[in-house]
Structures are given as structure tokens and as C-alpha cells.
């Protein structure tokens, strides 16, 4: 039973007070360009998930608390939460550096867009 801390309201509680929302930073293609979505884009969005041993970026909701969604970076081996951050935000810089797999590409793209 994990202890989760919501970055929005700073409430800590058992994971049963929260709702796990799967992998974070998955882009929904239809929101930005509903017309030109390939079957592969849609497949990746719906079904392809990364399941690493170690650093994992994920979504949670402060379900029994303030009701807000947020992001978390968690180590799937030690279960340690490395960081929690806003649902529209990117992880702290040091975790972006550590990120692997699809997240590494995603963060790179997002940082470029921002810049």
C-alpha cells in the first residue's frame, strides 16, 4: 500500500485514497489534428504502453481529496516517488535527463515546442 502525496493540495494518504491513471505523457492525436491520424498513431495512443523496471512516469488523481489529476515519477523497483508535478507540467529537469523510452522523445519534443 503506497503512500501518495498530491502536489496540488499536499495531502498524503494511502493509495486507496487516490486513483491510478496509467502511463503519463501519452499524447491524444485527435485533440490537435483530428483529420490526419494514421491507424498507427491511434494504435500507439490507445494501446502501446511502456513498462520499464525503474523510472516510470504516470498519472494519478487525488480521488478522495481535492479531485485533481497530477503526474508522478515513480521507481517501479523501490516504489519510491521521485517527484509529483502538475498534470499539464513536465517533470523536473533531472528526471527528464533520466527518462528513457517513449518519454525521452516526448520530453524532447515538448521542450522544443516550449523553446
Amino acid at each position, binding site marked *: 500500500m503506497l503512500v501518495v502525496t498530491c502536489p496540488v493540495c499536499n*495531502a498524503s494518504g494511502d493509495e486507496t485514497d487516490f486513483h491510478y491513471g496509467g502511463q503519463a505523457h501519452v499524447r491524444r492525436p485527435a485533440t490537435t489534428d483530428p483529420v490526419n491520424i494514421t491507424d498507427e498513431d491511434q494504435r500507439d495512443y490507445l494501446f502501446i504502453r511502456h513498462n520499464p523496471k525503474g523510472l516510470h512516469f504516470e498519472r494519478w488523481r487525488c480521488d478522495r481529496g*481535492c479531485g*485533481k489529476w497530477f503526474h508522478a515519477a515513480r521507481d517501479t523497483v523501490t516504489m519510491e516517488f521521485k517527484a509529483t508535478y502538475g498534470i499539464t507540467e513536465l517533470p523536473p529537469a533531472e528526471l527528464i535527463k533520466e527518462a528513457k523510452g517513449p518519454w525521452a522523445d516526448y520530453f524532447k519534443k515538448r521542450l522544443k515546442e516550449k523553446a
Partner: protein
Amino acid sequence: MLEPQFESALAHRAAPDTLSISMREISERGMIDLRGLATDKKFMSAVKSVLGFDLPKAPRASTSWGDLKALWLSPDQWLILCTRSKTNSLLAELNAALAKIHSLAVDVSDMRAIIRLEGESVRETLMKGSSLDLISDDYKAGTVRRMRFAEIAALLHVVEENVIDIYVFRSYAEYTWAFLTKAARKGAEVKLFKR
């Protein structure tokens, strides 16, 4: 003309005398669910103009003035408490003040049942159903916290050290009452850390 008949969720329940705490339903309270952005100055000041005080911005805080009380639920949500008979007029005032401001105020006076718990072992009794550390300093008088209680969602408001109001959705009132009656049984008290 039809005279409306009022019947609260626990109208037919009285606490048995076998409990270590006292327990009763509070049914005469009006409640307004208010949504708006704490970061929206126009919203905050419009609400203040009606309530007479600032909405609390700190998580889990509450503010009160006379028979009015505002409980923080979320950065964009509050529960306004008032005397039930004044709910309509208060809601109308809020809606008038907020007419051009992005917000949503709804009368939810009947949506939840409120059970008032009083006694020295109130906190420990609740800890039989809640994983929160209710005996810690995080739960001083005035604190509001939504939580999982037994198997359901609940809202807790610490009124005083030994007085706690627990809010549950109306349909769960009987379940909550039954759980508390069992948990607060005399003989089953737990005193944590010699409180």
C-alpha cells in the same frame, strides 16, 4: 396547496445509549457547492461581497462568520454552509454577484447527510474506518478533509477538538450510521498514545 413534507436521511434514527460517543444527524444545515478559480480575483471578491469574508485558499481550511461557513474542497471548489432556510436567498445572491464570472453555484443541501460526533474517543472511532492520522496536529479544529471512510467517500470537518462532523452522500447515511454504531460501541474504545 401542497405543504412540503421534509424528511432527512436519518430522521428515524437515534443513537443507542451503548456508545462511547454521542452521535446525531444535523439536518437543518444548508449547503451550496461553489466552483470558481481561487486565482480569479473577480470571483474571489464577488464571493466575499456576498459572504462577508474571504474564501479560504489554504488546502483543507475553513472560514466562518456568524452562521456562514466556507469549507475548502479543492483549489476551485468550496462548500458553503448556512442555515437551511437561508439557502435559497444566499444562492440567489451568489448567482447575482457571479452572473458574469465563470463559476458554478449549486444548492446541494440534500445531497449529503451530516452526522455530528462528540466525545473524547471521536478521533479513534473514526480511525477504525479511516487511514488518516486523525490524532495528529494536521487535524486541528477547522480542518476539512475528504477521505475514504470504511468503504465509501466522506468529508470530515473538525469542529472542535472532540467534535467532528462527518458528511456522506445521502444514500450512504444508513451505512455510515451502522458502521459508526458498531465502531463506537462501549468496550471497544481504543486510546492511542494515552490520549
